[in-house]
């Protein structure tokens, strides 16, 4: 009998049943995909890092290396299992040509190396250790991904010819987030190109026990060994490798949570409308002695059927579509070998969704218990009237037309019912506004100030390809006499040691020069102005535990220098760990220099960039917009894509839910509509009433959604952005899109859905609805 009741019920409400099933399928698919991805990601990552024998601790270093000292440190430290110094040579992108493409515009530091001896192996796409022959070049897998190169291509490195023999996985630098990439060639070829670029060393350790990593790190730091470069540890590498896919998984999970919420809301108002419609019948069943649990079972069975079908479809879809999302993991990390485990996890995720839905339905059905049989039979409807409606009388209405009044009044009287739609609209406007605001924020020109870059027009980077001070003053001389350059500033970066609270020393890179010329945004305090002041990037301030006004001690060539922290700023450059000061120093070597310039006529930028490029071949000259685009462009464009995609999703959800809601409302209000019609209200009167209801709920939804987006959304966005190194920012809201375009699109889709949903109202026959 249950089967028949359920089947009839579903046939009666095909659209709603189907829509609910679609939402359940979508949620199930996403949850299953997320579970599958997590298993594959962790498996593949584990496999890659095991096969490659990734170092547990690595110090990058440019400059001289004292091998004897390092070897003796490694021998004496009882945590060390294995130790090696690998070297690689950085070659400017413009000197590398893969196939017919030059890497001149690459934002990566491209380095060349030979296969490691003991660990940190570079692997081929089958996970084997590569042995390159002379003339062969193995290219980082990311260049395969973006179709820069393919196997068999000719490659030129500073004029020497190679053949692309294959692609390699690098357990350290695979990630798009790692700014360096390693190419692999034979020892003989390496010796030939070694002098064509700057050599960098990777001082690598494998430890006997990973848990000793912290102790080892401080031992290394306090031993005063080579440390001119970043320090990287195994957990950091794991995180870097997992991050981009991890973010994808997080986004999928987030979206699936939203869809689950929407599916539940969908179920909630279908169920409530159904209970409302069956009110009298339920009362009768209760009165003749059927148990509440018997009645619940019918509804539970129906939703079990919908949820089971939806979950099955979702699971099948996730198995079909997982290949697409796994492509990245497979390419960068290889196969995880955990296919069946992944499928099992996917299934577990789906079971979770199923159980959540059933628990929810069960919860909604609890109101059966409180339903009074007598009341149900007597009145046939449950009377819910909100307190707010009482003050709102038709006889006191001076403001609205009667139709608008009836619409608004109904919303106020049945708040609970409309709350469902309100929640959906709030969610929709939230997921439309937040990504849009995030996009307009990070794409606005002022945003670079938050990112540690001043607002200037042209930027010249002078790296260690020659004597930096000489090269810098050469450029300075030219700029001084160039009338097109209205202002410029030279900022040189040097490495110093800073004393930490516990007495240990740590490297700190400080950018010296005039920081008032092109100011950046300081989240706390201000730019350093006096000789004894220093400003720290947010990440450095956090790591050193310093606040504005606190003092810190720097050592340079044995001498100590006391500085006061004048300000803290956000930075995305150089891994977010930077500092700024104005003192002059002649002791430490310059690591690099940046010359920032402002043009008297900004439209000359292209001409000036090429002029300086030609004149100073040793410097990297860039238009600041291009520079921002290169460091940050891919993020901006993916945020843009995400914002467009989420806007579309939100609109579709709005459209579908409003449509469903209207259909349910019409079914529920059949009797009232018939009454109104009998009293002489026309179909267009009734349409006006329902449109007013939608509009009232929509306006409330938009206001709440916007408020939420500007508070909670900004907080969320700040968390996302702070992961790039920027700690403080406020939304740069594009008023036209946030306050006009988005509301208009929402209004449009709600109106369309309302009007489509209302077609049923016109067909309601007074004679049929009023009988009995």
């Amino acid at each position, binding site marked *: 009998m249950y089967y028949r009741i359920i089947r009839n019920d579903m046939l009666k409400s095909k659209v709603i049943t189907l829509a609910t099933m679609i939402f359940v399928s979508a949620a199930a698919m996403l949850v299953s995909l997320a579970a599958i991805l997590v298993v594959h990601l962790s498996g593949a990552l584990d496999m890659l890092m095991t096969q490659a024998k990734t170092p547990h601790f690595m110090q990058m270093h440019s400059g001289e290396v004292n091998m004897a000292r390092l070897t003796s440190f490694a021998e004496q430290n009882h945590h060390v299992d294995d130790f090696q110094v690998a070297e690689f040579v950085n070659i400017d992108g413009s000197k590398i040509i893969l196939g017919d493409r030059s890497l001149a515009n690459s934002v990566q530091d491209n380095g060349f190396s030979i296969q490691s001896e003991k660990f940190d192996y570079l692997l081929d796409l089958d996970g084997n250790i590569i042995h390159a022959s002379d003339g062969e070049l193995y290219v980082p897998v990311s260049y395969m991904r973006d179709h820069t190169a393919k196997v068999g291509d000719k490659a030129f490195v500073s004029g020497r010819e190679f053949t692309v023999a294959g692609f390699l996985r690098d357990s350290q630098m695979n990630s798009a987030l790692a700014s360096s990439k390693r190419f692999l060639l034979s020892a003989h070829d390496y010796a030939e190109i070694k002098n064509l670029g700057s050599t960098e060393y990777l001082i690598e350790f494998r430890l006997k026990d990973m848990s000793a990593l912290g102790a080892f790190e401080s031992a290394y730091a306090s031993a005063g060994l080579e440390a001119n470069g970043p320090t990287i540890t195994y957990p950091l590498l794991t995180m870097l490798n997992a991050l981009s896919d991890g973010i994808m998984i997080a986004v999928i999970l987030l979206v699936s949570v939203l869809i689950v919420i929407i599916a539940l809301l969908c179920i909630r108002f279908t169920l409530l409308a159904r209970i409302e419609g069956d009110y009298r019948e339920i009362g009768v069943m209760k009165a003749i002695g059927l148990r509440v649990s018997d009645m619940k079972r019918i509804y539970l069975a129906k939703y079990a059927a919908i949820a089971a079908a939806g979950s099955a479809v979702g699971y099948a879809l996730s198995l079909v579509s997982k290949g697409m999302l796994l492509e990245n993991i497979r390419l960068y990390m290889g196969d995880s070998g955990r296919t069946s485990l992944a499928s099992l996890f996917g299934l577990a995720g789906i079971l979770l969704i199923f159980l959540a839905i059933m628990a929810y339905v069960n919860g909604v059905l609890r109101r059966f218990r409180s339903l009074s049989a007598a009341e149900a039979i007597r009145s046939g409807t449950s009377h819910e*009237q909100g307190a707010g*409606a009482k003050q709102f009388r038709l*006889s006191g209405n001076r403001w609205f037309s009667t*139709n608008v009044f009836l619409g608004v009044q109904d919303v106020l009287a049945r708040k609970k019912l409309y709350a469902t739609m309100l929640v959906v609209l709030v969610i929709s406007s939230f997921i439309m506004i937040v990504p849009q605001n995030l996009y307009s924020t990070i794409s606005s020109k002022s945003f670079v100030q938050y990112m540690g870059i001043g607002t200037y027009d042209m930027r010249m980077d002078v790296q260690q390809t020659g004597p930096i001070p000489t090269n810098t003053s050469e450029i300075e001389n030219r700029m001084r006499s160039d009338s097109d350059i209205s202002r410029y500033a030279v900022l040189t970066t040097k490495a110093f040691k800073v004393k930490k609270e516990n007495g240990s020393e740590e490297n700190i890179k400080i950018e010296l020069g005039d920081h008032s010329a092109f100011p950046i945004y300081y989240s706390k305090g201000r730019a350093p102005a006096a000789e004894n002041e220093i400003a720290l990037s947010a990440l450095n301030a956090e790591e050193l535990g310093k606040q504005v006004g606190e003092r810190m001690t720097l050592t340079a060539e044995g001498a100590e220098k006391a500085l006061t922290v004048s300000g803290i700023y956000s930075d995305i450059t150089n891994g977010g760990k930077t500092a700024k000061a104005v003192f002059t120093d002649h002791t430490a070597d310059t690591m690099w220099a940046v010359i920032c310039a402002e043009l008297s006529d900004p439209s000359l930028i292209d001409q000036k960039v090429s002029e300086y490029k030609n004149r100073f071949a040793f410097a990297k000259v860039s238009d600041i917009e291009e520079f921002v685009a290169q460091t940050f462009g891919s993020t901006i464009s993916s945020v843009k894509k995400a914002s467009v995609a989420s806007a579309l999703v939100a609109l579709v959800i709005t459209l579908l839910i409003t449509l469903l809601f209207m259909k349910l409302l019409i079914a529920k209000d059949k009797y009232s509509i018939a009454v109104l019609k009998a*009293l002489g209200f026309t179909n267009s009167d009734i349409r006006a009433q329902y449109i007013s209801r939608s509009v009232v709920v929509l306006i409330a939804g938009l206001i709440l959604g916007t408020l939420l987006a500007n508070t909670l959304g900004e907080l969320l966005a700040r968390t996302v952005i702070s992961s790039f190194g920027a700690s403080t920012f406020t939304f740069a809201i594009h008023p036209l899109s946030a306050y006009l375009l988005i509301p208009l699109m929402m209004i449009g889709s709600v109106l369309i859905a309302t009007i489509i949903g209302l077609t049923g109202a016109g067909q309601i026959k007074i004679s049929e609805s009023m009988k*009995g």
Partner: protein
Amino acid sequence: MKKMMIGDRIVKSFGEGRERRHVLDGVSMEINEGEFVAVMGPSGSGKSTLMFALSGTDSVDSGKVVVDGKDLSTMGENELSDLRRTTMGFVFQQPTMLSNLNILDNIILPAMRDNRNNVTKISEKARLLMQRVGIADLEKRDITQVSGGQLQRAGICRALINSPKMIFGDEPTGALNSQSAQEMMDILSEINADGTAVMLVTHDAKVAARTERIMFMRDGTIVSELKLPKLEGMDMDQRIEEVTEKMREIGI
């Protein structure tokens, strides 16, 4: 006497194919201005369907309905709505009130559609009507806070708010106890005495006996008619006797 309403060979059927059933099988009838008539018949005889057809709330398959000189078949949905709102009032068996509105708001609702700016006047009129039917103190009550009889009286006030020429009642006393039913009929008689035509659909001989003309229906046709003198011209028991006699005679 001017005709308020003319039904000419009205046919209305429900169902498809073999299941098709003529609920109104060529009914012809007339109601004069200010007349008080009743339609009687057993369940399924087509009396409610006739009322819906005459008031333009339901379409007919064939035949013609003319209300206040206007042919309904030539009118669109909106015009029919306008006609219902301005010319007719309805009282149903179950109180058909909107649960969101209080008693007063329910009563003034049909008038507010066109005359929102006269809300004070309309409310005043509603209060007078409420006073007349004896529910003056209930205007602020919710519809769940009053009795069925009181709700039915409010329904009459609503039907009268636009000063219609004709009132339809579909078993208006069907859900009331005899005391309330009696009071209800007194009110309807009063309204009729003021010149408003009233047509009641009922199966209750006592109710029908209050009217001046009774049409008896069976299987979709009017099988007989009974005329009674004005209320004051004949004793109530005698009227009821005549009606029941007629019912016996035609076997309903």
